[in-house]
């Protein structure tokens, strides 16, 4: 048990910490592959990003190696997107994620570790276009 306790302590020490920023261009070909994978034929997405595309542009979480000492695998608990400006083909988006919270819960099938990430997406004009809050779970 001491091992898992220290994993949680080490992860909690990261609350507030930002991961490396990533920069990516919104490309028409990438958008096309993304909406084809979802099966969404709306012609609007040839020029504009659909609601969940930001997660394909840059990871919505950064890799926390020590989290993998806890449990067997990852689950996605949920995602909350806030949209401030449209994201269009040709935009250059810089994403930065930080750890917002880390906690453990006891569920019906055992203990779960929750890591909450918050990601901000800023375009080439320095304007925040969207924010994402994601819940990563180790089980």
């Amino acid at each position: 048990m001491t091992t898992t306790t220290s994993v949680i302590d080490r992860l909690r020490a990261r609350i507030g910490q930002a991961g490396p920023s990533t920069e990516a261009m919104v490309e028409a070909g990438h958008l096309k592959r993304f909406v084809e994978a979802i099966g969404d034929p709306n012609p609007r997405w040839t020029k504009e990003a659909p609601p969940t595309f930001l997660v394909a542009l840059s990871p919505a979480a950064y890799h926390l190696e020590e989290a993998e000492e806890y449990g067997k695998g990852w689950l996605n608990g949920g995602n909350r997107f806030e949209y401030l400006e449209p994201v269009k083909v040709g935009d250059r988006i810089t994403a930065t994620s930080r750890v917002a919270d880390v906690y453990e819960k006891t569920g019906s099938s055992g203990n779960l570790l929750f890591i909450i990430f918050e990601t901000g997406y800023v375009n080439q004009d320095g304007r925040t276009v969207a924010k994402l809050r994601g819940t990563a779970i180790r089980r």
Partner: protein
Amino acid sequence: MTVGVGDALPELVKHPTTQQLVRYAGAQGDFYEIHYDQAYAISVGLPGVILHGLLKAGFLGQLVTDWLGDRGTLKRFEVSYRGIDQPGRPYACRGRVTKVDGDQVELEVWGEDSAGNRTTVGTATVEMKG
């Protein structure tokens, strides 16, 4: 077209396949093996490969934007993944209007497996054009 509380969004039924999971993995850049490697998925206690939560969110995003069209703008979209879903089974996306406050409209959306379980639940806020 006026939007009223209780209005149902036109249902969207998806038929996810393992090929779709691989396409989505590539398009999103999420190569976690539980979405395409059957043996790996079973080794971590799953019944087999499962849909990406964000693929289900993509389905629900489509449900909302198909309904909304150019009548307004999506401002907020939140989804929680309550259960796992496997390819080869239909996945029904549904929703309804829960609140109308001026040009601000709140929606409840969800995805149901073939047994009727709401494995993904969410809400959205849209701002209708005046």
